[in-house]
């Protein structure tokens, strides 16, 4: 799927939760949102972008993907 678009969408989610003063809670918010609403192939693609250097990803998003990779990355097909 279009990686650039997914990064844009994920950044917008991160921007919402970034307003949460407690950083850990913010990251958890982003992770849980992506887990609850994103179909596995979207999450898989997001990690492809992440592994390719996370181009264009906001700091909150980068931190979330690093911290919550285990729950967010779907099982291999």
């Amino acid at each position, binding site marked *: *799927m*279009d990686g650039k*678009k997914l990064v*844009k*969408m994920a950044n*917008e*989610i991160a*921007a*919402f939760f*970034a*307003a*949460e*003063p407690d950083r850990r809670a913010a990251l958890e918010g982003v992770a849980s*949102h992506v*887990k*609850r*609403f*994103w*179909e*596995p*192939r*979207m999450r898989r693609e997001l990690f492809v972008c992440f592994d390719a250097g996370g181009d264009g990803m906001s700091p909150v998003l980068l931190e979330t993907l690093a911290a919550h990779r285990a729950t967010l990355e*779907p099982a291999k*097909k």
Partner: protein
Amino acid sequence: MRGLANREPGPRQTMYSNKVIDHGTPARTAPATVSLQIDGVTVTVPVGTSVMRAAVEAGRKVPKLCATDSLEAFGSCRLCLVEIEGRRGYPASCTTPCEPGMKVKTQSKKLADLRRGVMELYISDHPLDCLTCPANGNCELQDMAGVVGLREVRYGYEGENHLVQAKDASNPYFTFDATKCIVCSRCVRACEEVQGTFALTVQGRGFDSKIASGPTNFLDSECVSCGACVQACPTATLMEKSIAEQGQPDRVVDTTCAYCGVGCSFRAEMKGNDVVRMVPHKDGKANHGHSCVKGRFAWGYATHPDRVKKPMIRSKITDPWREVTWDEAIAYAASEIRRIQGKYGVASVGGITSSRCTNEETYLVQKLVRAAFGNNNVDTCARVCHSPTGYGLKTTLGESAGTQDFDSVDDTDCVIVIGANPTDAHPVFASRMKRRLRGDTSRPGAGLIVIDPRRIDLVRTPHVEADFHLQLQPGTNVAVLNALAHVVVTEGLAKDDYVRERCDLGDFAKWKAFIALPKNSPEALEKVTGVPAASIRGAARLYATAKNGAIYYGLGVTEHSQGSTTVMGIANLAMVTGNIGRPGVGVNPLRGQNNVQGSCDMGSFPHELPGYRHVSDPAVRALFGTAWGVPIQDEPGLRIPNMFDAAIDGSFKALYVQGEDIAQSDPDTRHVQHALESLECLIVQDIFVNETAKYAHVFLPGSSFLEKDGTFTNAERRINRVRKVMPPLAGLGDWEATMALAKALGYPMHYDHPSQIMDEIARLTPTFTGVSYEKLDRLGSIQWPCNDKAPEGTPVMHEQEFVRGKGKFVITDYVATPERTSQRFPLILTTGRILSQYNVGAQTRRTQNTAWHAADVLEIHPHDAEQRGIQDGDAVSVVSRKGDTTLRAVLSERMQPGVVYTTFHHPESGANVVTTENSDWATNCPEYKVTAVQVVAHAKKSEWQREFDDFADRQESLLPKGALKGEAR
């Protein structure tokens, strides 16, 4: 006695007399009562009840002409005279309130003479052509002549009279025949009191008085063709053309309008299998006997010649369609789905449920996807309208639905309307709201705050004027809501007790610290929102200090990149002012299509099973897995925009779309077209060959709301019955077609009637446990939750506590949309809709509603127009980063300079060719409301429009000859 008198006799479908009991004057609701005697019968009625109404409750009927129970009494015809012991003269029973101990006589020699005299005068100026009159058999004047025993008319017709006036037939649906008018002014009062439009007046006095509609005729007047005056008229003066053409009906079936989220109840008046008239139902709890032009008159599309009656298939979209049997079409569709899943994987197929279909049908489609397709790739068109409502209200309050019933507006003292245009999009509710805003003799009108970039009608309409119109820049809703909440919190207007008792205090403390930040003050945000800080402060004070404050909102809230944030901002504002949990307050999403609420309730979202329960919850999966006999996937599926992306990407190959037109309604048309072209199998089920069907491989003819049984759930969570009045034109109801497809996929479903589907929903969904067709027939309608705790449903939610326990305040930081104006695209385009057309227009364009709106136009401020050398009526090109399209310009000061506006009712207008792929961060609900554009004078159709024409021509030539005409263009 009282209750009984209200009920109409007989079962719901019966040999028909269309004489509904008319009590003459409206019911009163005062708790105190008075007792009196009418013709020796004692009755007890609420204080303020008229003698006329009390008489009906005592089983007596006083003759009347100018009174009817939808309107306040007026007392002009003098036919309803009675005698009251101890009073002089003969008072009019309609205008005389009951008093304790009154002794009333409704009949005497003297009264009979007086009444005959009154009738004689009326009849002496009335053409006596009853036998050929369309009202024959349903005319109150005729009835009254009979009732009073009029036998001769002494005054001749020689003198001056009104018998030679021309008929006004300008309205497409009804005529005004002044020769039959008795100037009872019921129509004038209906237009004022019921509809709130004030289009009619009584001109002149005495003998010269006549009813006038604007300067020339009905069509050119302010009239919105709601039909209230036609309904109120006691004679043939205001008469439906359909009745004039077809005669009076012979049976009636109660059902529900299939247009907007108000969900009006109607009586479908039938002759054989033909509808001759739709009449709003007096007992309908959403509409109380009122309607709008769509439900009342625009049902002709259901039998339009464009209706497809036979299934069709083709292997490529460049092939001609082949008409086939249902069996062949279903077998082909099923084999394609299985072939594609074999080749590309289980997750390569999905389905879209429809907000225009019934709850039962929607439930079946999502069940088909989850159980027979074996994945969670199911979504619904609510994705593109109210998905942020679901997310935002569930997060803050705990339930994905509005908090009130419509009647609640009667108890409100301050209304906020944000991003909604009720007089156009939810007309019947708007009439209710306007009534409350006008106030009456007992109460002043409620305060009104309109938050909208456009000056919508509600800002100033007869006897209603907004206290504040916060005319914000499109895309800054969150900033305005934050500023309002900032004022509430920093000026000490918060309801601390309420918050302490009912909300999560940890979240509240964080939110309070955030909202009090100087960056959220009205002054700081003025530059962003364009709204003067003083107006924000004034509005915040008005809402926060009202006894009951209610917020109503629509797609102008949800269809933004911060749609979900705005919904949560609204919930924050309502909670901090203590405005949730009783009549008169609340957070009220006005839903677009008739069954948006229902389709969401029924598990149409890819992450939620029916009743808004997440697929990751093992207990919920086990419940459905056991009931359906298959395991349920634990990961969310694709949402509609994700399906498009996956289709272009090559991992999504087949889609079953029931009753939706994604090719027209979804944003960024070229992207959608590309996605649809990438599919190997597109199955479209619809009543017309819509835009999406032009990309389809299988076409299954759908059934209209007149052709099946089921339920719709309106914006107030009210479940209303839809009843079959004629057999499906193509042989199968939509639910039956879905069942056939499931069976062909090796997953047979066993239902003989939609009521059994509802029984299954009730078994599996805690908020629906108490719902059944039997109960719906008994109560008329039910607002969910309906279960042991609330056996007759729940008009107001969150009464004792929030559904989620403690209300959750959410930090709503304002984030500007990525869509910015620039030198190349200096204007903001926002979109909406109008009264006479509905959504993509597939239905209303096939009715005479086109008399009011034949084409989509671009509204532009005269200042912006002048700068560009554009005159009213010019063809202009609207260009965005995404594409361009050509429309006619209409100069309008409803827009502020810098903002232009259009609708999307006609496919060739291509409004969505210009809209972008930006969407709500939480739900991917598209941002229809903000697109940066340039507008230039330009007479030619755009490239897209020329391609559209070619493609439409080509597709039309591929349709079977003579079978149907294809999409009207």
